[in-house]
């Protein structure tokens, strides 16, 4: 996108943020030299993240730069129906309430490092563990690819083409890999804190600038009524189905992102986890809410854009505001720096989790179980870097065919949710049924996505999830049996078991 303030100041802010990330990442490493002594130290920050850092790392993992650019463009296009993005981010926390309390406790008790560890503990099935690991790695890889492309676009806009954007992407990725390599989760979480603050400051400045120069919601309401009155209406029919789908699929899917789950394991104690999740339950108003309002306010400034033009809406508004005076000029440079920082902060956590699954669940469990933790960490890191290199090649030379293979994420990832959540509570869960359900769900979701099938207006991922659940539940009811000990417990101490546990 073309930005009025791009060029030298853009390069300076990029350098500034890049160096800041590096300093924070390296500083964190210097204070915790034993970080490579165990998987727990490296991938979970020694299970020692306190409330503030935990909150920001949840925050930065969940909100990427895409949230700002993509969601405001969508709010501009579909209007108030896109209000759903606010409750959707809160739904994620609601889904956490279903499994986080027990998952957290189990992770401490059994030294769980990755979500696959939990599945292994629960089902003791090679098939389930390997399939889940593959689905997670696949979704994480594509998620990472999306972030890399987004960094490229952000850098291209901010530097106004002064620096080839590939150079900008490499710059940030090298920094990200260095601090991730050195300090693991601790470095990632502390840089997340800086990146989260940068994004928040930038977005608020954009909101203020928009209101000052283009007018507030009443003015926008009048414009929308004139230009596209349908954008003020209540979603109905297909729109309503889409709304509900969004809350369910994305709420559950985003909650089971392995990088999000690993943050539950990293909490210092239950108190820190509870507090940071409470704060997260309110953040959507400040992030998705503000981004939504910006998209709506954009009507006043640019009332009649095509779909393609609307994709650039944040850049166009930032340019217009930056031209007004020097304070907003600086603020908009900060905004774009913050957007790039936010993308980096999402990418770093995805990469770390990717490496952890390789270290612990593939290499450490099946290839070389006798390896030292240090070696497992090294293998995870190296494979992670190779994966980034591969994804960069894809990002710069998108394959002409089968490109959809690289777009599947949530549809596939959500198929792991039944095993994770239901498996946590249902003793009767039958490993083979879980496996077949997960596999069928993933294949169905993929096929529906590739063929663009959405029967009844329901998303492909939800269809997969429905098939998955039916197989899981039916199979477990027929073949599964609750462990004898558990049955005895239930019979004897039904009253006692309720308050306990």
């Amino acid at each position, binding site marked *: 996108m073309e930005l009025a303030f791009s060029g030298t100041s853009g390069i300076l802010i990029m350098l500034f943020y890049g160096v800041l990330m590096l300093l924070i990442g390296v500083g964190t490493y210097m204070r*915790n030299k034993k970080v490579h002594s165990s998987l727990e130290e490296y991938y979970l920050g*020694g*299970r*020692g*993240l*306190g409330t503030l*850092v935990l909150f920001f790392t949840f925050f930065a993992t969940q909100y990427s730069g895409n949230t700002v650019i993509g969601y405001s463009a969508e709010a501009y296009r579909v209007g*108030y129906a896109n*209000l759903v993005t*606010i*409750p959707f981010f*809160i*739904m994620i*926390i*609601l889904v956490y*309430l*279903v*499994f986080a*309390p*027990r998952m957290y*406790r189990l992770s*401490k008790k059994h030294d769980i490092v990755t979500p696959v560890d939990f599945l292994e503990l629960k089902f003791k099935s090679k098939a389930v563990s390997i399939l889940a690991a593959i689905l997670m790695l696949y979704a994480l890889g594509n998620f990472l690819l999306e972030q890399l492309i987004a960094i490229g676009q952000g850098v291209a806009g901010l530097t106004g083409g002064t620096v080839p954007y590939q150079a900008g992407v490499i710059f940030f990725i090298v920094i990200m890999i260095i601090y991730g390599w050195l300090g693991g989760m601790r470095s990632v979480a502390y840089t997340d804190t800086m990146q989260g603050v940068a994004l928040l400051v930038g977005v608020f400045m954009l909101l203020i600038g928009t209101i000052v120069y283009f007018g*507030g*919601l*009443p*003015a*926008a*309401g*009048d414009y929308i*009524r004139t230009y596209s009155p349908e954008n*003020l*209406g*209540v*979603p*109905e029919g297909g729109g*309503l189905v889409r*709304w*509900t789908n969004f*809350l369910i699929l994305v709420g559950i899917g985003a909650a089971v992102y392995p990088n999000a789950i690993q943050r539950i394991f990293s909490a*210092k*104690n*239950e*108190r820190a986890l*509870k507090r940071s*999740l*409470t704060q997260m*339950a*309110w953040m*959507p*108003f400040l992030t998705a809410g503000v981004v939504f309002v910006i998209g709506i306010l954009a009507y006043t400034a640019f009332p009649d854009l095509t779909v393609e033009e609307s994709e650039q809406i944040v850049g166009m508004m930032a340019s217009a505001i930056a031209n007004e005076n020097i304070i907003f000029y600086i603020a908009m440079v900060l905004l774009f720096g913050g957007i790039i920082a936010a993308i980096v902060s999402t990418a770093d956590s995805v990469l770390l989790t990717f490496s952890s699954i390789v270290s612990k669940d593939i290499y450490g469990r099946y290839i070389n179980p006798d390896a030292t933790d240090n070696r497992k960490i090294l293998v995870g890191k190296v494979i992670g870097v190779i994966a980034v290199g591969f994804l960069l090649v894809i990002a710069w030379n998108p394959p002409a065919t089968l490109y959809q293979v690289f777009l599947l994420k949530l549809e596939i990832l959500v198929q792991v949710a039944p095993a994770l959540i239901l498996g946590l*509570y249902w003793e009767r869960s039958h490993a083979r049924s879980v496996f077949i359900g997960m596999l069928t769900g993933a294949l169905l979701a993929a096929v529906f996505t590739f063929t663009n099938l959405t029967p009844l207006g329901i998303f492909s991922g939800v269809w997969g999830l429905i098939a998955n659940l039916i197989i899981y539940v039916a199979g477990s009811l027929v073949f599964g049996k609750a462990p004898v000990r558990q049955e005895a417990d239930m019979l004897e101490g039904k009253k006692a078991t*309720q*308050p*306990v*546990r």
Partner: protein
Amino acid sequence: MKQNTREPIRNYKIWLGFLIIFILLNPWYFPSGEEPVLVFGVPLWALVILGVTVMLSLYITYVIRYHWDIEDEPSREEEK
């Protein structure tokens, strides 16, 4: 184990509350096809949904605060 450990999933009443909020969170109950009423430029239905969304956050805060307490060992003495 303590008698007073609490876990949200074990209390079905909590989920009844969430179900009600979730149902209200989907804007099916507004008349469709009518000229939307604007309050300070914002459609009334959107304000209602926003209100329900605030309730969702409040309810989550309440559940985390009063219905989640299951750590049965003192937390580790870790750095930071």
